[in-house]
């Protein structure tokens, strides 16, 4: 059964405030509580609603520096992707690993306590990762918008 407008409306309201109580969510979506929870159960059972994750503000924890490292790998080695990715997973300061089709192959989101700490991570943990052909860094100045909401 395909997703209908009611499912989308429900997800849209849930996305706006994931922590809200089911009664509140149902009221906003114009549904009874029973209908809302039945629909949510169905979205979970179908694997569309996979769960909820807490967002951690690393800056509030004293991690002041955030850098986006865009990496091109040496693709003459067929194992380059796998070996690079498994080594990158071992670096605790790496928050996100993304692979791309385009000018860059991989992006790592790396945090550090300050610039001196970043320098240390960069030299001892990042530049030592295998198969890097080229690397460029973007330093985060500000998050203008975050949340990764979908236009449901």
């Amino acid at each position, binding site marked *: 059964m395909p*997703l209908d407008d009611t499912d*989308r409306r429900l*997800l849209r309201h*849930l*996305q706006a405030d*994931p*922590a809200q109580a089911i009664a509140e969510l149902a009221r906003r979506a114009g549904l009874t509580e029973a209908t809302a929870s039945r629909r949510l159960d169905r979205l979970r059972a*179908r*694997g*569309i*609603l*996979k*769960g*909820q*994750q*807490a*967002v*951690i*503000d*690393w800056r*509030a*924890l*004293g*991690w002041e520096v955030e850098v*986006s490292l865009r990496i091109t790998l040496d693709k003459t080695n067929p194992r380059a992707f796998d070996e690079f990715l498994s080594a990158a*997973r071992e670096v*605790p*300061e*790496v*928050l*996100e*690993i*993304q*692979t*791309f*089709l*385009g*000018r*860059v192959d991989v*992006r790592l989101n790396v*945090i550090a306590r300050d610039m001196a700490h970043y320098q240390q991570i960069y030299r001892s943990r990042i530049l030592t990762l295998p198969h890097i052909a080229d690397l*460029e*860094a*973007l*330093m*985060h*100045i*500000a*998050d*203008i*918008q*975050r*949340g*990764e*909401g*979908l*236009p*449901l």
Partner: protein
Amino acid sequence: MPTLDDLDRAILRELATDATQTAGALGRKLGLSQPATWRRIQRLTEAGILAGRRLVLDQAALGFGVTVFLGITLAAKGRVGLQDFERAVTAIPEVQTVQHVLGLYDYRLRVVARDLADFERVLRRRILTLPGVGAVDANVLLSEERRPGPL
């Protein structure tokens, strides 16, 4: 900045995986009482460390088959230019995140679309028409994983 102990870190790790766990259930896992767990969650929230929740959705099943990261360089970089650009870009529904960055680009955007044809529509009609846009570089997301971070 508050100092965290091992239990705080364990709570953050758990909630970053599943934020719907109740204080009672989480406490049982970690060997803490429900009120003690609740107090710790409160403290982490008040300190701004727990900064809300995100839904984990199957984007493809919802019809969003393509995620593209755009690196945008502004043509003109006056202060007014930045504000105009930021106001306009945050109003585009397909734009999920906007980061002001220092380096090769000025802004980094995460954009979702139904497919590549839909992405082209968003790019031509919405992105390339933004005030002050110079060069745009696009990379299509193939895979993504979030790591627990240094907890």
